[in-house]
């Protein structure tokens, strides 16, 4: 397999990692965009989702947003934004597309988590005289935590994938190594870039799984009721 060897050579060549357009710079761009867009999307989606879940409304809205997020191609939105007047800036199309596609998983999962919180526990807390705010923060949010983290995880996977596609529309990030390789017919570089992107996505996903366990406000006290195979209603990839 010449290509595998070529990809290995590409990855082990120091000059590919440093300097302008090197792996470190592309990785930095990728992580920066991912973190920034996740924060913006969370600031938009989570308050809305938690409040709607708390007052028990917006179920149809949450489902519809998940459906729209799945049906609209990320690439189409990226290309549309790039050929629009916004495309004059390199950052805006990528930023908007990333935020837009991070919102559905965050919103749907957080909403579902709060909404599906054990009603007996919620009623008991209400009976103890907790106010709406206390109820949300001390009862519903800890109970919704696993769903909330699932939402954050799928949003992150989504954003990392979309940030890769951003290279097609002229953005930076690790996807650029793949698209540059395609346009110059350098298959080893394409494969090397793909390995880097896949490794990044898997590492971040793994880190989030571990972080979610460590940060669980009810660590060790949660009932292990999760079925082996939960259907996947709300994740989406690009």
């Amino acid at each position, binding site marked *: *397999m010449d*290509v*595998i060897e070529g990809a290995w050579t590409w990855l082990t060549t120091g000059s590919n990692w440093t300097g302008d357009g090197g792996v470190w710079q592309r990785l930095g761009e990728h992580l920066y965009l991912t973190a920034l867009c996740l924060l913006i999307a969370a600031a938009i989606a989570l308050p809305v989702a938690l409040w709607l879940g*708390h*007052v*028990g409304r917006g179920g149809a809205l949450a489902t519809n947003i998940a*459906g729209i997020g*799945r*049906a*609209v*191609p*990320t*690439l*189409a*939105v990226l*290309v*549309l934004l*790039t*050929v*629009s007047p916004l495309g004059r800036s390199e950052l805006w199309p990528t930023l908007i597309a990333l935020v837009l596609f991070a919102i559905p998983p965050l919103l749907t999962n957080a909403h579902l988590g709060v909404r599906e919180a054990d*009603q007996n526990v919620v009623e008991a807390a209400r009976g103890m005289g907790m106010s*709406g705010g206390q109820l949300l923060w001390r009862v519903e949010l800890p109970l919704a935590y696993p769903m909330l983290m699932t939402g954050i995880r799928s949003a992150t*996977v989504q954003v*990392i*994938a979309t940030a*890769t*596609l951003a*290279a*097609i*529309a002229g953005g930076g990030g690790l*996807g650029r190594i*793949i*698209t540059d*390789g*395609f346009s110059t017919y350098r*298959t080893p570089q*394409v*494969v090397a*870039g*793909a*390995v880097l*992107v*896949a490794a990044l*996505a*898997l590492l971040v*996903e793994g880190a989030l799984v571990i972080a979610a366990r460590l940060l669980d406000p009810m660590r060790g006290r949660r009932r292990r009721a999760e*079925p*082996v*195979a*939960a*259907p*996947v*209603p709300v*994740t*989406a*990839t*690009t």
Partner: protein
Amino acid sequence: MSKGCLAANDWICGEYLRTRGQELTDATIQHVGITAAAVGIGLLVALPLAVLARRWRPVAPPLLALTTVLYTVPSLAMLALLVPILGISVSVVITALVLYSLTILLRNILAGLEGVPEEVREAARGMGYGPLRLLLTVELPLAVPALMAGLRIATVSTIAMTTVGGIIDYGGLGNLLFSGLDSVFKAQVLTASVLCVVLAVLADVLLLGVQRLLTPWTRARAAAATPQSAAATPQTARAA
């Protein structure tokens, strides 16, 4: 006004639809073909895997973990990794999409099979059903709603993801997105994007219809269940 919407590079352009009708039709046909092939193969692979994981429990967790790992790999990277194995061909795109749809389908079919009540299984066994007959005439039919829900999600997201195949010229309407991006051709980009969404909505409605036809008993049950859930609403509706 009507003279130059192509020349003016307008977003909406009737002239574009008239002059490039053939190109649009070809791209749509390729799009539908790639999606149908990917989801069809995905279903053919997922169904026996789900049955296997249901029968032989230890297989389930590693199988689900593997598909989750595959699902995490971004699509552009997946295509790029498959190119050296399969060459630049339509099979690269179809294989990548099969791997993604497999995750969704496997989880949903398995959830459907696990949702079959144990009493139902016992009753069938008591009536003398063997394992194969139990699977084919009791368990699989009862898993159809979950399977169809998974199939709808897989189809809709596959239609959206097919566009990325445009990077190697096998992306259906995605090809038009790529060439429209290169030439900043607004009408082409907008038309291709809208067609993708229309395809996704049509496929979803079509599969919903198939689901209704395949599971006539769920409609009767849903109708019977409505008063109950209506009665439960006051409890869940709360003031802020």
